[in-house]
Every structure is written in structure tokens, then in C-alpha cells.
């Protein structure tokens, strides 16, 4: 469990940008491994940023804070990857979707159901997994990514 203060709001100082900060990928994936999906949230315009980053792409503000995200959301768009990159071939066809969480934040991810069962508007919930358990070949990972979890979506009804 990271002891990083997730109430921090930017602009970040140089010393804030460390591997235990959720504004960096190691910090973001540490939290995901602990079951917390963190988004950046622009305190000026409200835009969600997944993964969190130091500046808002919508308005340019650096007054970005960290917001824990809900577990559930809806499918905005979806497809099936019939010929995925080689480390994912055991999972083919891979169902993927863009999901809008109940907070309004969006992220793309695998869906554990066959594509025929997915529709725009389908209700889903995310969970974090160990990539080896999922069946993703370890060749997919760069050395610094090896301990990072992967998220996936399950249909909830």
C-alpha cells in the first residue's frame, strides 16, 4: 500500500515526480495493484485524465488532482481483435472496449466476455489482474512493466 498523499493537487514540483506518486506510471500501477484505479482530475475544467498526468489536455491547467474511480461503467464502443499482437495470441479474439466509468472518466481495456455478448451501453466493472494469470505472454512486458497489473472489464449483467 502506497503511503503517497493522493490529495495532492498540481502544479507539481520536480521533487513530487517520483515513482510513488500516482502522477507517474509506477505510482498509478502500484495503486491499481492495491485495487484502486486513480484518475487525474482537472480542478479548473473537471476533465478526467487516465492515467494521471501533470497537465490537463482539455484546458492546459496544471491544477490537476487525484481522484479514485468507481468500479463500474458502460461500454461506449467495442470490437474484437482477431489477430492481436503476438503476446496476446492465446487470448484471440480479444474483446476490447472503450468504457465510460460512472464518474465520466474513460479508459480502454479488455473485456472478458465474447464480443457477441457486448453492446454499446453494456454495464461493466473493472478489476486488476496479474498478466501471467490472464494468459498474456511475458514477452509483452518491458522490464519495468513486469510487476504492473493489467485491468480488465467483466460484464455485470
Amino acid at each position, binding site marked *: 500500500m502506497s503511503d503517497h498523499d493522493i490529495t495532492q493537487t498540481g502544479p507539481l514540483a520536480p521533487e513530487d515526480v517520483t515513482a510513488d506518486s500516482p502522477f507517474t506510471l509506477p505510482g498509478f500501477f502500484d495503486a491499481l495493484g492495491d485495487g484502486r484505479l486513480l484518475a487525474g482530475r482537472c480542478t479548473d475544467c473537471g476533465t478526467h485524465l*487516465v492515467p494521471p498526468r501533470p497537465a490537463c*489536455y482539455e484546458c492546459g491547467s496544471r491544477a490537476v488532482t487525484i481522484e479514485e474511480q468507481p468500479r463500474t461503467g458502460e461500454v461506449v*464502443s467495442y*470490437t*474484437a481483435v482477431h489477430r492481436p*499482437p*503476438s503476446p496476446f495470441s492465446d487470448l484471440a479474439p480479444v474483446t476490447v472496449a472503450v468504457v465510460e466509468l460512472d464518474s465520466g472518466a474513460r479508459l*480502454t481495456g479488455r473485456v472478458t466476455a465474447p464480443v457477441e455478448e457486448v453492446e454499446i451501453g453494456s454495464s461493466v466493472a473493472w478489476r486488476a489482474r496479474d498478466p501471467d494469470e490472464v494468459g*498474456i505472454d511475458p514477452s509483452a512486458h518491458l522490464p519495468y512493466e513486469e510487476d504492473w497489473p493489467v485491468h480488465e472489464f467483466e460484464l455485470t449483467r
Partner: protein
Amino acid sequence: MTDAHIAAVGTSPLGWTDLPGRDLFSRALAETFADLPDPAEVVDALYVGAQSERYENQIMQGTLLAEWAGLQNRPAERVEACAAAGALALKNAVRDVRAGVHDAVLACGVEKMTAGGTEGATNALAAAFERALEQRSGITAPSQYALIARRYLHETDVTEADLAEIAVKNHRNAAANPRAMFQREVDVETVLDSEYVAPPLKLYDCAPVTDGAAAVLVTSERLAADLAADSVRVAGVGTAANALAVAESNLTYLEGADVAASRAYEDAGIEPGDVDVAEVHDAFTVCEAMLAEAVGFAPEGRGVETVRDPAERSPGWTDVHINTSGGLKARGHPIGATGLTQAVEAYEQLTGRAGDRQIPDAGTALLVNEGGLADAHTAAHVLTGV
């Protein structure tokens, strides 16, 4: 400001070839300089668009191609924005000539996509998308565009059959283009019956994996005249980078393409309705429809009418002819060279060299080249005849 002109163009054969990248470049260069002095007597600098070193395990493409063109100790560099790399090479060449930094700059592009087979191309192209969440979910180029296509079909009354008609139209155009990879027509059933790559996109909705190179000589107006070249003017340039992740894209409106094209129009002092011919980035059929809307040719949701004769389109459409070359779909899509193959088609249309696909009185062309997911990077150029 000096006016920048395109004084000469050339391409290699586009398709599956036995030539490595540097040799494909040599083919393109030989055509470009067929009626000109040696490159070393003309060219001050070189830019090369190249997507990935994964294909041939070779970076330093600027140095390599300058060497193969006999251009010793000249500025020469690679530019990269996935499939928008070719147009970025052109943009840099135009900027240098306009600014008076150089009189002549060679904009080139090269990609040897077949070097690693289908799997090699799939993996190399996947690198163009967001790494931390999207690549690690198993996405590919077709699946990223399928997420856009699915949403576009959901929000409009456009069907998969409408998208298929775009592939049919582009194959028909390519049949009249001696440079095209697929110089053959296909019917709508062939497109609809082809296998799903990432639904709703099928094999025939997708541009092919292509080997190829292109070389475009950009010069000052005066040098073009001194060379007695049949030139066209680069009247407008605009680029814009938008979001990398599909989750952060608008999905149905390509804002980055709108912004880049608007900048190019403003630079050229024209309106979308002034454009006679356009080469737009149909990496997937749905892109042609969405780009027609984003760059101001078509009303919202009606971009698929790109396949119709101008007189038969909905109100709000312009009279533009789109992808007369056959587009990425059928002319071929050698990633880093594609933006320049678009310029080659516009050059041929504006100089009356387009043969059976010539649009009469074509005077103004728009080029829209994109990299990454749709408008993740857009480079737009307006060319005019002289």
C-alpha cells in the same frame, strides 16, 4: 516569404517487393530526377519520413538516404509521427524553402513493411498507440479504428455496406492509376464477405501492408523556373497533434484534422469549397467518411457520400473528388511514404498528368495525412496549379 513549389516527384513500385528500403528510395529518386541535374547539384537538405526501425533494424535514415542520393555533409534527418511522417517531411521542406533557409529540399518517405511478415507489421504498428493501458490490452491498428467505426455507425445511419462502397470506389480509382498496388476493381459483395479483422471492419476496409518509397523535390519558385520544372505551388500548410489514446478521442469527430485543415486553408487563403481534388487518409474506409466531414467537404454524418458524383450528393457537400489515386486502400500504404504518395497524386492531377483518372480543370488540391489513431497527428497541405 519565398513561395515553395513541388518541382518533381517520384515513387517506387508500391506493393510487396524484393527491394529493401534504401533500394525502394533509389527507385523513387531515379524517377524524381529523371529530367533534372544530379541531386547533389540541386538539393540542399533532406527529410525522410519513416515509421519504424523495427522493419529493417535501421535508424539514421536521413544519413542513409542522403548517402544513397550522393548528398554529402548536408542536413538530413528522419521525422516520425507514424503514418503522418511523410507529410511532416514535406512540411519541413516547405518551411525551410519558405523561410529562405534552403532553395531545394528533398522530402522523402520509405517503409519496408513486409520485412517482418504480417506479425512484424502488426507489432510495429501497435507501437503507434498508447502504451500503458491500450497496448497492454492487446489492441492493434485495425481494432483501434474499429472502436471509432463502431461508435460512428452507432451515432449515424451509416452501415457497413456504405463503408464497403468506399473501398469499391477506391479500387475503381486505383484501376486507373499505374502506381497503385491494387490496379483492380472489387465489388461490394467481395468487401462485405471478407473476414472481420476487428468488427465492424473487415479485411477490405483496411489499407494493405505495403513496401514503398516516395521522393518529392521542394524548391523556391525561382529555382523551379530555373530548372524548367512543371511545378505546383504549396499554398498552405497546417498540422495538429491530438490525443494518443482512443479512450481520449472524440470517436466521431476528428477535431485534430479539422484544426490542421483549417490552418492549411487559412494559410492558402481558400475555403473547403475551393478544393477540386483531395487525397485523404483512408487507412480504414471509415476514415475517408469522417475526414470528409472534419475538413469541411461533407455535412455531419454524410461523409460516406464521398463515393457519389458531386451532383448526386446531399446539400452541404462540396464538388471535391476524393482519393482519385485509389487512396491508401488501393494505391497502397507504405506508412512513412504515404503522405508523399498523396502529394504525388495531387502533383499529377494539378499538372494534367493523371491519365484516365484526370479530373478536368483540377486547380486546387488538399492533402490530409494522419498518424497514430486517426487525428492523433494530422498534417494537411493545400497545393495549387501554376
